[in-house]
């Protein structure tokens, strides 16, 4: 006897990087709970994962979720990695009244009260913006003269929303100068021209938003132009341990605002287990997939039974405390819209070989280092 | 003779510097067969393309039934009653012979209601009715040539331009086509035919126009044209100066 849970991610197609990472996190979480004796409150029942692949297409998110619900007989679904797949997914969950745990996308529409069956364990766009402003704060504590700020965002849904929020926030700050606001094509093969324009605006700090590939391309472009600002990144664009593996010292000193850092106390063991199982470092998406799955399993364990209502009731009452946070969340408890009240971000930095948390001070493992930089 | 149905007046067609057709004039009367001959590259096909609207003349005018049709697009000329075949046969390969001809019937904006019946009648006239349901690409060359004629006939032309419909046929097959063409003349269709088969062109044509290097070098009844020195020099060669049969 097992209880089945579903996970829908893009395993193929354009979104396969993020989706694959998310799925691996979910796999690890389920493997661990099964190894530890299954769901304790339900007589140690084992959890079985049923996977769905959206192929990065919204209509397949619909089809796969329905397949998982109707044929896979899953009691809840998790996923997906991008909001254009997750929004249709959540509509299906809504229609069938099956709980949906949103693991990765930070689109606020998922938890703005319109969806009754979606719970989001992770952060929302505006949290990143708050985090970025914190990071600027952190920088100004030692180098108050770094007031010229440039912004680089992709022209996809994530980038445009972040760009809008960042612009609004920076406009409030009379002490800062926005030297350039640059959009790049999310599908672009290189970022030379955006980097060139950034450099020409002579910023002290570059805020960059985007995914892993953009992080690779931007860092290479900065290097080509001998352009070395203080970098604060979000998403997969900075602070991903794989970046260090791919780019070496090009990423040295870059800051990242992230809901997850590998050196958070509870995360270290997970990182090691992940590396052992998959032979690659635990990334942001993997960690979020893992964490969302943990939340889902915990709710399942604490539910009276495996009906949708029971699981939903369990999710509403769920409380997970600080000690178990492998992500930057302070705790987990959902508000009436299904948004995690304890969600939070930290600032990390590549320092030499290490990727360490440097802010806020109570979670930091090291001090932020603002090394030599040039912008002219 | 009746008034000319088709009048070609000082028509030229140049390709860049090449004067493929250079200042050529002639008339075609109702119910007449006019032969157009000349060496390879003389501009005969180009003349056809110009009359049927596939090329715009560089200079000159063309009138049909008293109307100036110079520069009209091909489909409009076809609807007016100028039909043509192509030197290189261009059947609709992947549909049946009958469908080919039906397309000809409905082409000039006619409804499909009794098109099949009309198409069958046309096929009979060119002796292809027994091949109606065969895919056009499976026809032998002489049949393809007759299909080419049939499809053009289906548009109910008053003038039919035939470009080498006898090339590559055996003498017996040529006789068959000649018979069909003679039948068309009896129906009152005017024919302009290009052919290198002297035996056929000399016996069929009422008159012959000879072109060389884009220019008209001779015009007249077959016997006279065949004896013309310029024509012998440019086209026939000494050995071929036989009078029409």
């Amino acid at each position, binding site marked *: 006897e097992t209880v089945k849970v579903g996970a829908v991610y893009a395993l*193929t197609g*354009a979104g*396969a*990087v993020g989706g*694959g990472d998310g799925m691996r996190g979910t796999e690890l979480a389920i493997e661990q709970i099964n190894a530890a004796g299954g769901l304790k409150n339900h007589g140690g029942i084992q959890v079985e994962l049923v996977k769905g692949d959206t192929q990065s297409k919204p209509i397949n998110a619909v089809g796969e979720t329905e397949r998982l619900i109707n044929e896979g007989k899953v009691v809840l679904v998790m996923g997906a990695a991008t909001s254009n797949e997750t929004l249709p997914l959540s509509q299906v969950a809504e229609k069938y009244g099956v709980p949906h745990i949103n693991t990765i996308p930070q689109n606020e529409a998922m938890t703005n009260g319109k969806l009754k069956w979606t719970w989001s364990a992770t952060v929302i766009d505006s949290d990143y913006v708050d985090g970025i402003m914190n990071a600027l704060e952190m920088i100004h504590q030692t180098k108050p003269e770094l007031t010229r700020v440039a912004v680089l965002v*992709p*022209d996809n849904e994530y980038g445009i929303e972040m760009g809008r929020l960042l612009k609004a926030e920076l406009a409030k700050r009379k002490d800062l100068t926005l030297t*350039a606001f*640059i*959009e*790049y*094509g*999310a*599908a*672009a*093969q*290189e970022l*030379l*021209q*955006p980097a*060139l*324009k950034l450099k*020409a*605006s002579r910023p002290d700090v570059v805020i960059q938003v985007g995914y*892993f*590939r953009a992080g*690779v*391309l931007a860092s*290479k472009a900065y*290097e*080509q*132009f*001998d352009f070395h600002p203080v970098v604060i990144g979000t998403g997969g664009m900075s602070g991903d341990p*794989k970046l260090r593996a*791919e*780019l*070496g010292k090009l990423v040295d000193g870059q800051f990242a605002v992230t809901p997850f850092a590998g050196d958070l106390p509870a995360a270290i063991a997970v990182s090691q287990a992940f590396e052992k199982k998959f032979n*690659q470092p635990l990334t942001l998406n993997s960690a979020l997939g893992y964490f969302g799955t943990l939340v889902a399993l915990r709710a399942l364990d604490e539910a009276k039974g495996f009906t949708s209502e029971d699981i939903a009731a369990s999710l509403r009452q769920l409380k997970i405390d600080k000690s178990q946070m492998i992500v930057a969340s302070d705790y987990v408890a959902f508000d009436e819209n299904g948004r995690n009240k304890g969600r939070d971000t930290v600032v990390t930095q590549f320092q030499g070989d290490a990727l360490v948390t440097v802010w806020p001070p109570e979670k930091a493992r090291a001090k932020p280092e603002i090394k030599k930089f040039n912008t002219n | 003779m009746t008034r000319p149905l088709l009048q070609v007046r000082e028509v030229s067609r140049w390709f860049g510097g090449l004067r493929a057709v250079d200042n050529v004039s002639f008339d075609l009367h109702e119910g007449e067969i006019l032969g157009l001959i000349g060496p390879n590259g003389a501009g005969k096909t180009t003349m056809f393309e110009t009359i049927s609207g596939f090329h715009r003349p560089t200079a000159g005018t063309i009138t049909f039934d008293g109307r100036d049709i110079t520069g009209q697009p091909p489909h409009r000329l076809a609807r007016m009653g100028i039909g043509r075949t192509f030197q290189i046969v261009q059947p609709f390969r992947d549909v049946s012979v009958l469908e080919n001809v039906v397309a000809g019937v409905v082409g000039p904006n006619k409804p499909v209601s009794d098109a099949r019946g009309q198409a069958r009648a046309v096929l009979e006239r060119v002796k292809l009715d027994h091949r109606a349901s065969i895919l056009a690409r499976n026809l032998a060359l002489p049949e393809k040539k007759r299909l080419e004629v049939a499809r053009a006939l289906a548009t109910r032309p008053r003038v039919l331009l035939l470009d080498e419909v006898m090339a590559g046929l055996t003498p017996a097959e040529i006789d068959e086509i000649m018979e069909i063409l003679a039948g068309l003349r009896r129906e009152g269709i005017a024919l302009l035919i290009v052919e290198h088969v002297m035996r056929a062109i000399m016996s069929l044509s009422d008159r012959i126009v000879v072109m060389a290097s884009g220019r008209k070098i001779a015009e007249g009844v077959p016997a006279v044209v065949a004896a013309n020195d310029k024509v012998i020099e440019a086209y026939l060669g000494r050995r071929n100066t036989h009078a029409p049969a």
Partner: protein
Amino acid sequence: MDLLPLLPQAFADGMLRGAVYAIVAVGLTLTFGVLRIVNFAHGDFLAVGLYVTYLGAKLLGFDPYLSLVLALPIVTLAAAFTYRSLVAPILDAPEHNQIVVTLGLSLILQNLMLAIFSADVHTIPSTVASGVFAFDAVFVQTAAVIAGGVSIIVCLGLYWFLHRTETGRQIRAAAQDRDAARMCGVKVDRMYMLAFCIGVGSLGLVAPLIAPFSYITPTVGASFTLTSFIVVVLGSMGNFLGALLGGFIVGVVEAVGGLLTGGSINFIITYAIFILFLLFKPEGLLGGRRL
């Protein structure tokens, strides 16, 4: 912001990127423009070459340039195998059969790479050519300059090969009329095979050259396929010098467009120029003359 001073840099970036487009498109020119084989998997062979280069670096510690000795033969072999098993049997088939077969091949290649290497983004730095040239205010990567230079040489070399050598002439003859070429004593099957292997195999040469300044994912080749078709058409189908010119134009339009606009508006400009080009000069940059 005053963008004018940045133009030289954008232009340089565009030329170098254009050279890469050109060299990828040159292979397509041979297979599509000359042999008329519609190969939607063209770019995916570039990805194969990049993964070979990557493996060379990871497993043997090879510099990308050294991996040339692996990538070139392996991609060429893959091309030969593809030709024998998939392309040769459909040479006479209608174009749309070729499209479906090569789309199928593209799916297979991309997902094979996905299954083996995962969707992760990788880079392959070179220690030989890691530096950056600075001319005045213009910065260019050494590796990109090398790739651009080789690209130009290869385009000219292929032009020479096709027009000035016995084999080249026979390839062109075979491409224009296979049976007639056979009746002239041309070993047509071998010529087709050779042309396909050169056209696709050249990607095995390209891959190590662009590896130091690009990245690898299983789908990286797909974006090149589309651009290559555009470049081939822009540069007059089947013309190598046209491909070179077409590559430069697309590269520069992208780069300068990227400088003057932001985000994907850049793509809009590139496509708009391409469409206008097709509408008003469909025979391509170098006139209608095919090989």
